[in-house]
């Protein structure tokens, strides 16, 4: 019951979705399964939210180090949740003015929109922007031109970094006048290709494309084999240890 039923559910759902792809009559099954999937995913967010609340409350009641920050997390969570669910500040939609609850929860000017626009967005964007410093500093410490492979990687990264800035275009602005001196279009095209922005384009569209394509093919095969292992019950790690 605890392990067999989940295995049957996983296998049935997975194979139904695979079959639905090949048989036109069963296409709606796939669509229904996807709709169910999205609903359960939304419930998973609810579970995640309550779990966060539970953990923060535990931290506060145990007076663990940093419990004050847990209180801030809890407070911001509860306030955002209330504002979002109660549609605070949302005006009725102009299409259905007699339905006060029909306005969109993320309407411009509403409290939930405010939280998104002035707290969530700047905080998440700045967190990701900070990675620019950390990637650069980690690269500075870790990248060493010790062998051919490392040299290739470094040179490519350097070209791509420079080629996507104005500095790169400015540094190789002498290339175009030089290319104009040659009558042969092949030679001229080759010399124009030495501009840093053009080199970046070539790296991205030729070498990077080839490498990424091979990696993507490898990933696809890996995903397919892992999916089959899950559906056939070979991989049961998602069921946990079975202690509960």
């Amino acid at each position, binding site marked *: 019951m605890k392990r067999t039923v989940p295995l049957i*559910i*996983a296998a049935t*759902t997975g194979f139904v979705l*695979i079959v639905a792809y090949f048989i036109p009559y069963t296409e709606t099954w796939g669509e229904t399964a996807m709709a*169910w999937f999205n*609903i359960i*995913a*939304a*419930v*998973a*967010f609810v*579970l*995640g*939210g309550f779990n*966060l609340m*539970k953990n923060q409350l535990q931290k506060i009641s145990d007076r663990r180090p940093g419990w004050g*920050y*847990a209180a*801030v*997390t809890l407070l*911001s*969570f*509860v306030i955002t949740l209330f504002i*979002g669910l109660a549609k605070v500040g949302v*005006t*009725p939609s102009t299409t259905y*003015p*007699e339905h006060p609850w029909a306005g969109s929860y993320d309407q411009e000017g509403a409290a*939930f929109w*405010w939280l998104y626009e*002035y707290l*969530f967005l*700047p905080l998440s964007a*700045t967190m990701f*922007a*900070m990675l*620019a410093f950390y990637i650069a500093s980690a690269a500075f410490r870790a990248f060493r031109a010790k062998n051919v492979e490392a040299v*290739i990687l470094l*040179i490519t*990264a350097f070209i791509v*970094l420079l080629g*996507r800035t104005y500095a790169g275009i400015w540094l190789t602005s002498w290339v175009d006048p030089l290319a104009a001196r040659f009558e042969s279009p092949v030679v001229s095209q080759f010399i124009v290709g030495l501009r840093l922005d053009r080199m970046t384009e070539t790296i*991205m*569209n*030729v070498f990077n*494309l*080839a*490498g990424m*394509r*091979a*990696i993507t*093919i490898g*990933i*696809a095969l890996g*995903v*397919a084999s892992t*999916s089959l292992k899950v*559906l056939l019950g070979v991989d049961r790690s*998602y*069921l946990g240890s079975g202690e509960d």
Partner: protein
Amino acid sequence: MNRENLIWLTLMLLGGGVLLVNAGVKYSQSGTVNGTVYVQEIVADTGPDTPPIVTYERTIASLRNEPGVSFSLSRTIGVWAAALCTLAVFSFLWGDNPLYKLAESVFVGVSAAYAMVVGFWTEIVQNLLGNLLPDLMRRTLLPGLQSTKTTEWEYIVPLILGVMMLWRLAPSGGWIARWPLAFFIGATAGIRLISYLESDFVQQINNTILPLVVLTADGTVDVWWSVKNVTIVFGVFVSLVYFFFSVEHTGTVGALARIGIWLLMITFGASFGYTVMGRVALLAARLEFLFDEWLWVIDPLQRRLGL
């Protein structure tokens, strides 16, 4: 006072001083302080029986004396809050500190609730309740629901699975949550198996089958396109050879695999450069927000002309 606190205090005082001076300069120049937001009132007439609906849209500060334009306290506080949050996160560059921890805690709480609220309105209300209780939803939250829509009983399944998933919060019987989890895993595996094989395997191979000699309209060989295609086909081949571990990488296979490694190194270098530039673009956007929307030091989009 230790050295670290002294540095913090000095920085805070300096920052506050600069902000005050900047605000004073902006006020003397334009009669309004930097970071203020103005909104345009939009009145929508909804018929004789219902009162008009008033909404507000952001407008440029230079139009503040126009009719229907007013100062928005909530959005002004928002700009200042966003700026302070941005600075608080940036403060981590100097080291872990209470300001950063505070911003981080707010971020965790807000983002968890944000995901929950979005999931609730877009999936649970729209798709689950909209299919199970269409009449009630039509009268309350979803008046736009089709009048012919009737209850779709198959949606009782995700409702039951959802309740089973929430069972995980109960002190006992956590194993019940495995059933919806199994559905989740099975659905993901089924969808991914097909989609990855189609778009990332078959389609990628299909895209790699390129003409090795490209001819122009007048019948001559287009050298650069041909070289490009040959490089792509050869590049994919040697990279795959490197990933193929069923044959020992010696002799010809070893040589091809070595070229494959070089090509993969170019790929990693390009990906690294691309990622760094993406993050730098995000960083530039944050700095632009600080200097443009908050401090009014720059005006790249010319939103404050005449101020």
